């Protein structure tokens, strides 16, 4: 089974986000990028399937600051091929542009499965996987928490709110939006990542010109105004507990 994982890097929310002078985009100066959490699960799920039934795993990311680290970490986890999609990504692209770029590159080499994170926190113009499936005219199932390869068909577990799961069967090729992998994210020793830097080559693929149409035209970007803030209870644990006790009593709990 041939699996391609598409991953993207998103602004790291640990750093404070600032808006640029034009007021319509994020200021990239101090912005740190990190792998989208759900794409991390997608990579994990692909490696899991490789360990379970010997799939071939390719990980593809757009060329931005930090993409090499993402690729080498994936290699250290077990990915077979590493691909960097080169293009004008440094200014920030929307998912329509990214999806079209991935689609152009994948069209001639469709794998059995395309895995990608079901969403990212900066998906202003919709989820990457669903857009990609649309551009490639492939079926798409999102919010996936389990994937099994059975007799040439793919059996997928799709999550609904409240813990309900639907099992859906689909013939490859198919695009899946991964919500969570079948086991927790694994840790990779840094020495393995360093080793991967020496032994695993990264293939560079040139993306066609980026076409962001379909995404919204942003008129204004701002930080939300904080409405009311909680009434803070000060003091040590004992004092907080005492005050909470009063609140419980006032609310009729005790």
């Amino acid at each position, binding site marked *: 089974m041939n699996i391609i994982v598409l991953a993207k890097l998103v602004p790291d929310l640990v750093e404070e986000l600032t808006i640029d002078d034009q007021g319509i985009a994020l200021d990239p100066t101090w912005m740190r990028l990190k792998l989208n959490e759900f794409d991390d699960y997608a990579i994990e799920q692909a490696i899991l399937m490789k360990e379970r039934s010997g799939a071939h795993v390719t990980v593809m990311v757009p060329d931005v600051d930090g993409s090499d680290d993402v690729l080498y970490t994936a290699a250290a986890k077990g990915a077979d091929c590493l691909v960097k999609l080169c293009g004008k990504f440094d200014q920030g692209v929307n998912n329509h542009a990214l999806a079209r770029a991935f689609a152009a590159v994948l069209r001639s080499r469709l794998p059995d499965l395309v895995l990608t994170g079901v969403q990212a926190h900066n998906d202003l113009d919709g989820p990457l996987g669903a857009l990609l499936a649309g551009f490639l005219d492939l079926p798409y199932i999102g919010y996936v928490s389990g994937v099994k390869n059975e007799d040439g068909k793919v059996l997928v577990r799709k999550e609904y709110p409240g813990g309900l799961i639907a099992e859906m069967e689909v013939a490859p090729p198919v695009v899946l939006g991964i919500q969570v992998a079948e086991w*927790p994210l694994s*840790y990779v020793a840094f*020495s393995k990542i360093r080793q991967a830097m020496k032994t695993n080559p990264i293939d560079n693929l040139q993306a066609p010109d980026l076409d962001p149409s379909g995404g919204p035209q942003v008129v204004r970007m701002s930080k939300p105004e904080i409405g009311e803030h909680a009434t803070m209870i000060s003091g040590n644990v004992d004092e907080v507990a005492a005050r909470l006790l009063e609140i419980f009593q006032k609310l009729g709990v005790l």
Partner: protein
Amino acid sequence: MTLAPISQRLSFNDVFYNSLQELPDGERILACLQCGTCSGVCPFGYLMDFPPSKMIAFLRAGFFERVLKTDLVWMCASCYACARACPAKIPLTVGLMTRTKEELILAGNVPTELRDALENSQRYGNPLGESPRKRAVWTTGIDPPVKIMSQERQPVDVLWFVGDYASFHPRVQLVSRAFAKVLNALGVNFGILGHEENSDGDSQRLAGERGLFEVLAEKNGRAFARYSFGQIITTDPHAYNALKNEYPALGIAYPVRHYTQFLAERLGQLKPLLLRPVKARVTYHDPCFLGRANHIYAEPRQLLNAVPGVELMEMAHHSETSLCCGGGGGGMWLDGFTWEKAHVRLSEWRVREAVTSGADILAIACPYEAPRFEDAAKMVEKANRLMVRDIIELLAEAMGL
């Protein structure tokens, strides 16, 4: 008829055993008497499936894979009690425990809490997951202001390597601020790296992440190389240990002092400034990485004795036999894990000893200890009056800062 040749390939067990012997003084492991002292003196030896002596036994029997299937080696806080007690002087801490943790990490067998600390160290240069840009925020409001080397662009006499918890943890930031004031009062020309400082990496190294340690060290090395200074001082025994004993092998070698050594050298200048008495019975906890690992026992006591009003007393375990607070070797990031396995905290044992000694103040010299001992004091009977203070804080109090 010819017999098939016996495989000459070494088993994992043998490869591992051989690798231990290649480490400095590592060949002493061959002289292990199986006396069991290490396992007896280890604070968590009673809990481990494979305390140190049993690990060696299994290594010799060729069964080391069984050790790797367990996870109790993560209870090890790299406190050096075993290494100190071993009659054959086997470097057990680094030469066995850390190496075993390295193998567990390579296998991906890492408790989640520790994983987060390691990934944070990699991404943000500190295990707490704080933004590196905020590393010097603790200096706000100190006058004269603390010099940040990238802004200062002038040589300083002393580069103060602050450390992770001292930079970000609210309790330990108090100690950092006190030390800045003490240095100012002494007229020391010092600077800090601020956001260019990365974690010293020592606890990460002892937790089994050698690769991560090297990357952090290299980053710090590049930062040091940019600036001109006479020596490095640090308020963090783990950073001291790394800078003194581990960084030189990576080509990063500078004169380095722990703050207790630095201030003890200046006792003549310091003593006249210690005007306000601190009338208290004080007992001093020897940090593992200052004491057992680096043999610095006298200077902290000299400083405490210099504070007027202080009556210095020793706990039952002190100096070489000091009881670990549990924070080293990754222990700082395995609190949930150790609690789950042990239902007891080493820091609580130590606080109990402090109470028994009759002390009012438990004096410390390591950034891990303030939060750990203060938390423990809340849980230990009769410890609610015990105060935990870094020696710096007592000096600052005596100086009226």
